[in-house]
């Protein structure tokens, strides 16, 4: 039964006819050869979110990001002139990793005046220029100006920092974000500076976790035992329907808008006792923070529904922003490590707590998020294991899974374009939808 209106075509999926309505194959999530092409075609040339400007507040603030899917590590730093810069994290002398502490594979963050290589002490300014070489006169035909750090394209949108590892990106960050970016601009992301950061290595292809968070069809079932019993039965019987889906052209970006009138719930007995006492839960603290949310950007709640609860924006390839009606947001980043493994990062952003009550409410939201995500993550491992058997190769997707369809379709198109351009033999049979 349909509770919310669908497009004139009769379904969200048919509203985007290029997606088709047929079964899909998950070969793109188990083929190691295809994964190698994804690294080249997608991760080495798309704008990738690596953090927020609050992480680099002053001159010399820096952090590193391991980008396994592009076989590199990147330094992001605030330069003396206040601008952001990014460099491959490699010393020009003999290739040592420039910035790291204790464990070469781990990310670090901090603040410094210049970068000094641990190996032979070469030093680089924050703008990447080499400024000191140990025993410089021992080198041959040598000019320090010839050996700056290798730059990486970096830009920001609404305080989110993105890098692009292509030598010359085919589009700017603003162009890449397009209509989705302008629709979301102006949301007070920068005022929500109280964060909780989660991290886990998940033994599943990176696209499978994006799929899991891009559809809520699973929510009443997989998370059934998270709710009080009567409520769980009701939710399962109702199923899930989104208020709205949007696919932004061939950008790869998409969004799903969801009802979620549980803040506060109509019937307090719907939720667990601690949620009633603290007025908080999975959907965050029920009461809004002291941040002006009266004028929401046009991209939020596109259907203008009264029961609007949250909007989840899938930003191609591996970044998600989820904005909650009560005034907080979440981000997810999915960093591929292998065809069947990725690093999942989740971060919750709240307004700074005014008092202990605010802080405890945030704790409940943060802990609840973790319980749900643990179930999601473990289920993906179960999926990955069986997809690998190749016993089944055609999977039906319903209308509430339209964004999963889009993600696999766009990723496949990018890979096919790259493959054709570079005369690489076919890896996956069939045409991308």
């Amino acid at each position: 039964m349909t509770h919310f209106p669908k497009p004139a075509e009769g379904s969200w999926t048919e509203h985007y006819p290029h997606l088709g309505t047929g079964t899909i194959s998950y070969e793109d999530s188990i083929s190691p050869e295809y994964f190698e092409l994804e690294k080249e075609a997608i991760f080495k040339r798309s704008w990738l979110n690596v953090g927020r400007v609050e992480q680099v507040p002053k001159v010399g603030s820096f952090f590193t990001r391991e980008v396994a899917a592009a076989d590199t590590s990147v330094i992001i730093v605030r330069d003396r002139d206040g601008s952001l810069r990014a460099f491959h994290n490699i010393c020009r002398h003999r290739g040592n990793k420039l910035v790291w502490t204790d464990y070469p594979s781990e990310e670090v963050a901090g603040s410094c005046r210049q970068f000094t290589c641990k190996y032979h002490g070469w030093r680089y300014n924050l703008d990447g220029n080499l400024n000191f070489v140990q025993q410089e006169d021992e080198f041959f035909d040598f000019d320090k100006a010839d050996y700056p750090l290798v730059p990486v394209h970096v830009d920001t949108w609404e305080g989110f920092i993105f890098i692009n590892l292509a030598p010359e990106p085919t589009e700017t960050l603003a162009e890449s974000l397009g209509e989705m970016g302008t629709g979301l601009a102006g949301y007070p992301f920068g005022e929500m500076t109280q964060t909780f950061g989660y991290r886990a290595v998940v033994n599943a292809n990176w696209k499978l976790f994006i799929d899991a968070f891009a559809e809520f069809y699973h929510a009443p079932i997989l998370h059934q035992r998270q709710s009080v019993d009567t409520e769980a039965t009701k939710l399962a019987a109702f199923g899930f329907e989104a208020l709205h889906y949007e696919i932004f052209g061939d950008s790869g970006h998409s969004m799903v808008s969801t009802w979620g009138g549980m803040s506060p719930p109509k019937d307090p007995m719907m939720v667990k006792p601690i949620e009633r006492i603290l007025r908080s839960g999975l959907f965050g603290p029920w009461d809004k923070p002291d941040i002006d949310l009266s004028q929401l950007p046009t991209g939020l709640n596109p259907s203008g529904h009264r029961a609007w609860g949250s909007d989840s924006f899938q930003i191609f390839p591996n970044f998600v922003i989820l904005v909650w009606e009560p005034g907080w947001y979440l981000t997810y980043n999915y960093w591929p490590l292998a065809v069947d493994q990725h690093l999942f990062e989740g971060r919750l952003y709240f307004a700074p707590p005014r008092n202990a009550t605010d802080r405890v409410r945030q704790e409940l939201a943060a802990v609840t998020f973790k319980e749900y995500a643990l179930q999601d993550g473990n289920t993906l491992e179960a999926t990955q294991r069986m997809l690998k058997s190749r016993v089944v190769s055609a999977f039906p997707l319903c209308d509430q899974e339209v964004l999963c369809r889009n993600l696999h379709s766009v990723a496949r198109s990018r890979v096919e374009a790259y493959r054709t351009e570079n005369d690489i033999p076919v890896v996956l049979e069939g045409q991308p939808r």
Partner: protein
Amino acid sequence: MTQLPEETALLPEETALVPEETALVPEETALLPEETALLPEEFADLEPFAERWALETEAERYAERLTSSMDDMQDLYDTTMPRMEAALSYLDTLELEALPGEARALMRLLFSTVNISFPVEVWKQPNVPDSGAAYLDLHDDPVV
């Protein structure tokens, strides 16, 4: 009937312990208010839980939960939940950025109560159903 002598035999031993214990009481009492109490005086009833559960990070609280029995968590829950509102009213009078040590411990005890609420209220087991060996580290949480 045959047990009687045995029980009777135990009595003198136990009685013998009493003076020793009594001897300890003045010392402990002297220490309690100033040095061993972790929580504000008003919340002395929660004190028995403080050492084990007033933990600094979510990682520590979650680890404690995973190795705890349901009985222990139920105990914590039954004791702290009725005091939640009083504890928050008390803490809200203080500046969050500059909580004194005992207030901070109280806050952390509330965090632990939050952490064990799903096991106690819903699952009747320490970890979320079907999560197996999955983990999700809260590697970066606000310090209180």
